[in-house]
């Protein structure tokens, strides 16, 4: 938005609020720049520590080791945040599907039919690749979510009648598997999310697979923008302050 706005007489004048905002942003930028300049240069970081503990993490990729093993708690909370986002969207409204049949071109259907299995395959491969190269649950899940978005954009008629229970199970699979593995570790090792060293790789793969599925379904549900049709119907009780859409 430009700071200089034109009024009716086509004369330039300064909007005082925008000018104030601009001033504050400029101060913030300068302050951050000063902090950045005062940081010590060439700090080696924690790469050496991660490399020395790589053997015990159960995976070969340092990024996956940090994300799921050394800092597994953060990743667990991230997965929960995604779940919370879907709960928020589902509590607002039903998924708005366009009413009436739309004539779809065979080219579009063919592309969807070809691309969807390929995207699912790529997503699974990214999850598998996460143990030794770049990749992992979030990237694989994002590609799965992209496949879901492709289906939603194509407006296939069966998507309207997707039942709610399997969706809910798929949404919860990642957080539940993550949490039960964490509980198992708590009982076995006495520490939350401290995987036993010999089976850490298998645990991480299980968690990543479940989380990728959940993240994919989560992102596709966020794109759909509401809960499925056979989910809780509109009751109009006062416990529903948002008063979802009835159309």
């Amino acid at each position, binding site marked *: 938005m430009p700071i200089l706005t034109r009024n009716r007489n086509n004369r330039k004048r300064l909007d005082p609020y925008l000018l104030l905002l601009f001033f504050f942003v400029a101060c913030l930028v300068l302050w951050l720049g000063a902090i950045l300049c005062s940081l010590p240069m060439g700090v080696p970081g924690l790469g050496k520590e991660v490399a020395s503990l790589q053997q015990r993490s159960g995976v070969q990729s340092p990024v996956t080791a940090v994300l799921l093993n050394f800092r597994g708690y953060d990743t667990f909370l991230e997965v929960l945040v995604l779940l919370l986002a879907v709960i928020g969207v589902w509590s607002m409204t039903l998924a708005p599907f366009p009413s009436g049949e739309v004539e779809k071109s065979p080219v579009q259907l063919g592309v969807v039919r070809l691309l969807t299995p390929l995207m699912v395959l790529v997503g699974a491969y990214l999850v598998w690749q996460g143990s030794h*190269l770049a990749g992992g649950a979030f990237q694989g899940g994002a*590609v799965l*979510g992209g496949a879901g978005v492709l289906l939603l954009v194509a407006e296939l008629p069966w998507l309207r009648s997707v039942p709610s229970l399997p969706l809910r199970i798929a949404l919860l699979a990642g957080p539940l598997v993550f949490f039960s593995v964490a509980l198992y570790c708590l009982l076995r090792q006495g520490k939350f999310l401290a995987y036993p060293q010999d089976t850490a790789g298998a645990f991480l793969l299980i968690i990543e697979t479940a989380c990728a599925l959940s993240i994919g379904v989560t992102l596709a549900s966020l*794109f759909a923008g509401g809960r499925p049709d056979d989910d809780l119907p509109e009751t109009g009780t006062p416990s529903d302050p948002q*008063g979802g*859409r009835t159309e």
Partner: protein
Amino acid sequence: MNLIISLFDIVLVITLLWLAWSMLSTEDIFKAVVLFISFGLLMALAWVRMRAPDVALAEAALGTGLTGPLFFSALRRMERLRQDERRLDTSEDRDADTDSEQE
């Protein structure tokens, strides 16, 4: 070889800054979304240059592949609501509520 790579980096940074500025300053929301998607793609390239392929993958898949269509569908819904508003100019119905909800 080194010179070419640093030249590439400089061009990349300048393009990113220019894209960000034109995305923020444009009046057309559709154009802003398109610029946002291209910004995300170039940002993924920048992450690759910073040797963070994991972040680059996530940026390309999440920042571009999912956020872009999400913005487009939000834009379409906004336009549909605005058309409804114009048609039902005087009647206060639920569409106005959902409009304010989504903005």
